[in-house]
């Protein structure tokens, strides 16, 4: 596999007495799509928040392009080329779609006309071209997801962290948005995505990490991971693997 753009080394984080992430290590190879999956409450979003600078881990480090970026604030990471979307979409509700994307475009372009041009281009790229002048809060959930993508994309990231970008979409909306994501990858952007929608994970991801109760319990190609009994147990409960005909874990 390609060299790792992002390396997470034994990151641990607690919320009070709750151990949310437990010595988790993973890596995202450059130019490829890596997925982070696991049952609810496994710590995936916490891990993302740590990688994207919103949380400071208790232990461990995050390396980006071989540099230690642990604890750097989100705006600095954005300037380095790390962009993230949020699980619960956070549009700039009072602004138009165009003005939403403009915020991202301005990161690397100070001049307004240049940033507007990029915002328009990115808007069309995600399929929001005819919505650009509408207020962001009039978009449907699928539209808002595209807007999250567009905004992040406008910052010209090298690493894109997608937090459950497919959540809440119906199958046809998913079918429409998957090629857009795959396209980013073709343009050289490294993607790490948290996802629950397994069909998307299977078809998009080249490398999968499974997080359960804060620990990484499996990693590998999608097919390998899906067949891993430990993973089945994590999702379906103790003994499920045996019931489904797989080997016992313990």
């Amino acid at each position, binding site marked *: 596999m390609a060299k790792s753009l992002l390396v997470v080394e034994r990151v641990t984080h607690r919320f009070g007495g709750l151990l949310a992430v437990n010595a988790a290590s993973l890596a995202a190879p450059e130019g490829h799509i890596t997925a982070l999956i696991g049952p609810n409450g496994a710590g995936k979003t916490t891990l993302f928040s740590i990688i994207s600078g*919103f949380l400071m881990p208790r232990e461990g480090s995050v390396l980006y392009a071989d540099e230690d970026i642990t604890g750097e604030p989100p705006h600095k990471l*954005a300037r380095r080329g790390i962009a993230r979307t949020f699980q619960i979409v956070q549009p*700039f*509700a009072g*602004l138009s779609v165009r*003005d939403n994307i403009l915020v991202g475009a301005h*990161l690397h372009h100070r001049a307004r006309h240049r940033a507007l041009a990029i915002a328009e281009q990115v808007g069309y790229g995600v399929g929001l071209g005819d919505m650009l002048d509408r207020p962001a809060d009039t978009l449907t959930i699928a*539209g808002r997801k595209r807007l999250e993508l567009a905004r992040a994309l406008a*910052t010209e990231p090298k690493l894109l962290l997608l937090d459950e970008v497919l959540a809440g979409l119906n199958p046809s909306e998913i079918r*429409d948005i998957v090629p857009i994501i795959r396209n980013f990858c073709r343009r050289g952007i490294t993607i790490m995505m948290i996802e629950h929608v397994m069909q998307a994970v299977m078809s998009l991801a080249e490398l999968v990490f499974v997080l359960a109760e804060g620990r990484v319990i499996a990693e590998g190609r999608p097919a390998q991971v899906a067949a891993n009994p430990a993973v089945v147990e994590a999702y379906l409960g103790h003994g499920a693997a045996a019931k489904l005909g797989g080997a016992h874990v313990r």
Partner: protein
Amino acid sequence: MRALAPIFVVVAALAAVPLVVSSNVVLNFLVVALLIALAGQGWNILGGYGGQYSFGHAAFFGTGAYVTAVLQVRYGVNAWPAFAAGIAAGAALGALIGALTFRSGLRGSYFALVTLAFAEVLRIVASVAPITGAGVGTLVKLDLRVEAMQFQGRAIFYWVILALVAASLVIARLIERSRFGVWLVAVRENEDAARALGVDATQVKLAAMVISGAVTAAAGCFYVQYFLFIDAPIAYGAWISVEALLTPIIGGVGTVFGPLLGALVVKSLGEAAKLITGDAPGLDLIVYGVVLVLVIWIMPRGLIGGLAQARNRLRRRAPAAAPSAEAGHG
């Protein structure tokens, strides 16, 4: 330049007023209205565009006023540099309060409280400190010369305050069209999302506060030159904190002309109230309070926002431009 055209038009129209109106009462009314508009534009930059609601903008008004007055009266500094110093003091105070509050991550209710507290502390200090004249206040000597920034005839005062207001309108417009302005508004709408997009929210808010402080301080400096007297309740009183936030909210928060429009409306209402019920203490503030509640209730985006909404509604009733845009993928 085209973006500034509406400003030129409005300012030119306003500048012509003293040429047709000679009533001192009307001119005085307009001078005060413009003064409040200036103070309000300062608030608007931080609160309207930035979404940080300060309840103590009197801190900047009063500081600008006292610095200007004290430099002239106690240190013999010429009025013009004293004026500039007042503005600089407002900016510096903005930097101080901003650094203290934004670095601690204070938002919302807390920010409103801290700004209120700062204004109150300054008021109490000013009411007992000898340098400000304590309870008696500071009186600037009448000296009707241009060098002393005092003018014969209200018209010239009017043009001076109008020039300051024009400058504040231009500042607001330039901010709107700049990257800083885009970032500021993003912070207002959703600070965390803005951070994730590379916006250094703390720096942006701080810069907004410095500009805001400077603009509102300018209003305080002008107050001193026009009224030649300042004391603690005038400089740091609740009245100016309320009027500074009321005018943008009524006129339209986060718009260039909001504070100006709001100031004219607010001052007109105040005068109307006085006319109807006689000049009783506290009456104009009652009207302001009621108007504030009503505007938030019925027209939270102010007059300009309300007009924009009405215009949008009319636009949507027009024959559908792209019917497919409504359905489908959204």
